[in-house]
């Protein structure tokens, strides 16, 4: 029997693909910003700039939780959604 989800999937066969690409790009962006923060922290820790180190660490953790949150929207593996 066809249901709403199936009809949707048939109408937009590229949906999961787009979602996947979007998530991966966002994740790459997040990791990029974190690399930047880490670089800044390493540089600033040398001159005992502790305030910056703390702010960057907090920011980095926020980005990590953002990345974790994004994983929630990861499309199901194809096999699984077919079986349902």
């Amino acid at each position, binding site marked *: 029997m066809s249901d709403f989800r199936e009809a949707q999937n048939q109408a937009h066969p590229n949906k999961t693909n787009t979602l*996947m690409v979007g*998530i*991966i790009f966002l*994740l*790459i962006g*997040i*990791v990029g910003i*974190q*690399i930047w*923060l*880490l670089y800044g*922290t*390493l*540089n600033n*820790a*040398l*001159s*005992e700039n*502790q305030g910056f*180190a*703390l702010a*960057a*660490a907090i920011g*980095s*953790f926020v*980005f*990590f939780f953002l*990345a*974790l949150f*994004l*994983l929630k929207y*990861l*499309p199901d*593996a*194809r*096999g699984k959604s077919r079986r349902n």
Partner: protein
Amino acid sequence: MAYNSKEKETPNWKKDFPVKKDEATHVSRREFAKFLCLLSGGMALGNGIIAIKSFAFPSKELEGEHFICNTSDVAIGQTKEFIIEGEKNIPYLLIHLSEGKWRAFEQKCTHLSCAVRYNAEINKIECPCHKGFFDADTGTVLAGPPPRPLPQLSVHIKNEKVYVSAYKESKTIS
């Protein structure tokens, strides 16, 4: 023992790897996304460790006075390299700028840690790596990529002997 016909048709390799090819690629993108997330966690952890380390073990100031050499060892316009042993062995550069005027700077360029040297002709400290220039008097950056001034030590002259200690504005001999 009876096999049903369907089971017979399935080759062994297919039983061992029961993942369809297109499914395999689909899964790998999921895995890639998860891997990126793991990487993100690693970055956050690294950043956290640096922050904790900088708060838990702030680098200590140099304690006490250290004897370097006799004043007669370094002529005006000349320099002497020395290392102060401690937790970290930091190389320093002692400069005799003019009569009675001494300076001691960390020898590591604040840009990418190349060894800086004193150029007496132009009275500047120069970093040969990327043409960074520092003021020989104060250690401030004059030109080039270094982001911070050179860290400095105070120099004291007592009985024709040169001593250094942690930098304090007022103690500097000019």
